[in-house]
């Protein structure tokens, strides 16, 4: 789960990472009055609080030179969707004059199976871009979880960025705090980009924290947020998530249901390989009951992009007869709103086929034939 910039900065401040002075602005609040109360004078940066990448480029961050200007810009940003998302909150901050912009992040390195600290002199741009264009400008240190990040490691990275004196000390403090946040909050990512180099120190101009979804039970205050609100998911994706399904919307027209993440992805790829376009990813998981199968079908009934539904089931732990019962139950309850093409094989296959046949559905054994049929029907509709 991604945190908003203002939430991440509150955590940063709590852990002693320098952030610009500022405040959170809600839609009906008076920015002039708040500027006065916080004793902040323009120029100020006004930043749309939406959880999408490339917010700056999309016009979600503006500098106001006067108080009047600030009021106008705030009004404008509240009504400006950034990549389709309208902010509920703006962050207003004192502009920070600075000489250079650095990059610092901590994430989990999958290959080394340890946290890795990444820093670069080239802050302010995407780390992906630096990695592609100038990989030699990224410095990294892998962290033994039983030792943690130590001061000397942080200083070593700071030296590589050309820092010295007081700045080096501040840099060490910042990295150690980031690591503590990474551990305390079950971070997938803790990132400062850019980290501004000022006349007397360093300031985190932006802040990003992503928390491991599987660890949300340890962070109840964050877990209660509705996933749809964050803009990471569409409404239907969020609904499916609440029902416990992994569901991702795509752009094609062949609705996909599979059992198991790998098989579901492979089914999307199969449709593509045969000349069609998958509309979604929907995994019913292992050992799904008839009830679950019915719920899954109802999600795709509600999903307008899916013109047909292609179910690819390999029965292992999942039983074909249960799947068949679920399909029949869904049709009974809400009618067959869209053509359903079923490929069914594995555990209790014969029983599953019989149940479907009685309901007037013929299941395929060969997945490629089934995919071709689904693609053809989607084209005809």
């Amino acid at each position, binding site marked *: 789960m991604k945190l908003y910039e203002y939430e991440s900065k509150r955590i940063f401040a709590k852990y002693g990472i320098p952030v610009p002075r500022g405040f959170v602005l809600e839609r009906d609040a008076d920015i002039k009055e708040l500027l006065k109360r916080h004793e902040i004078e323009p120029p100020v940066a006004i930043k749309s609080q939406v959880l999408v990448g490339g917010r700056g480029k999309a016009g979600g961050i503006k500098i106001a030179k006067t108080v009047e200007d600030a009021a106008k810009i705030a009004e404008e940003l509240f009504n400006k969707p950034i990549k389709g998302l309208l902010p509920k909150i703006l962050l207003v901050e004192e502009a920070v004059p600075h000489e250079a912009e650095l990059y610092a992040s901590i994430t989990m390195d999958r290959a080394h199976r340890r946290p890795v600290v990444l820093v670069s002199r080239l802050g302010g741009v995407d780390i992906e871009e630096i990695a592609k264009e100038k990989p030699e400008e990224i410095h990294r240190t892998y962290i033994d979880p039983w030792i943690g990040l130590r001061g000397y490691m942080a200083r070593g990275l700071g030296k590589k960025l050309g820092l010295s004196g007081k700045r080096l000390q501040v840099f060490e403090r910042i990295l150690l705090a980031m690591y503590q946040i990474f551990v305390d909050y079950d971070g997938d990512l803790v990132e400062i980009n850019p980290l501004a180099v000022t006349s007397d120190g360093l300031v985190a101009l932006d802040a990003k924290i992503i928390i491991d979804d599987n660890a949300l039970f340890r962070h109840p205050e964050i877990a209660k947020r509705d996933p749809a609100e964050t803009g990471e998911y569409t409404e239907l994706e969020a609904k499916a998530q609440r029902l416990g399904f992994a569901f991702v919307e795509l752009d094609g027209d062949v609705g996909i249901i599979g059992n198991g993440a790998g098989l579901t*992805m492979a089914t999307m790829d199969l449709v593509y390989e045969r000349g069609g376009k998958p509309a979604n990813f929907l995994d019913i998981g292992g050992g799904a009951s008839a009830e679950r199968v019915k719920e899954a079908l109802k999600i795709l009934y509600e999903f307008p992009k899916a013109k047909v539904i292609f179910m690819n089931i390999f029965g292992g732990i999942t039983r074909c007869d249960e799947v068949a019962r679920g399909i029949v139950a869904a049709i009974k309850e809400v009618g067959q709103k869209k053509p359903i093409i079923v490929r069914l094989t594995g555990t209790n296959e014969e029983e599953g086929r019989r149940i479907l046949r009685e309901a007037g559905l013929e299941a395929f054994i060969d997945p490629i034939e089934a995919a071709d049929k689904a693609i053809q029907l989607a084209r005809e509709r």
Partner: protein
Amino acid sequence: MAILIDRDTRVIVQGITGKEGSFHTKLMLDYGTKIVAGVTPGKGGREVHGVPVYDTVEEAVKNHGADASIVFVPARFAPDAVYEAIDAGLKLVVVITEHIPVHDTMRFVNYAKSKGTVIIGPNCPGIIVPGRIKIGIMPVSPFKPGNVAIISRSGTLTYEVAAAMTREGIGQSVAIGIGGDPIVGLDFVEALEMLEKDPETKAVVMIGEIGGDMEERVAAMYREGRFTKPIVAYVAGRTAPPGKRMGHAGAIISMGTGAYQDKVEALRKAGIPVAKMPYDIPRLLKEVL
């Protein structure tokens, strides 16, 4: 012996009294797996399908001797179960549990390494040596004994590929589901190091997916001659968009790594054929065998 386990491997089931643990204990016993004991804290003294249950792994090992364990314990308590198995001296721990926080996994995987214990998983179907033993939850009908190993990041897809191979008369020396999480214990490279030395394995099917760089590391290993038997690969997620988790926590293209094209290109450049569909794998295998 194949790799990691064989007929004589003595297995403990952690979380044996739970629904999943009990159900799969029965299926493993039916397949011939030597399950010598089960563990559920607070339920010591019972029996599940004739298997004695203990409160601690230590007692179970002391009374029965054991080499491996399989963990069905819920995510919040699974790390504790894994540490317990490592500290009891077990050499292999198969973690079926899904949704374990990645920081927890990272720590127990590092600890296991320092103690010389191999972890398979988490979020995996386990390991099977067809015809001899399974420590896992996979259905057994798709598998038959043979000399091609399967290593895979996905459960169901493994069964699908095994069934297709078996239909074409190609059996398996071993099949390992390494798990769908961002951080797992045994990875492809380590599994291949073991399979290189396994006389029963003549070729390998690798079923990868988007996310991470494990497939790229296999490509490098193969190119450098550190694995010399034929490999046939499939990578799931060609049509998956970046930044979205595709079911498995680890199946996500992020921070510029994990894309399908990068993986397939690396594998092909190294000389590893990549199947466009999982159903093409038996045909590609016949070409390299």
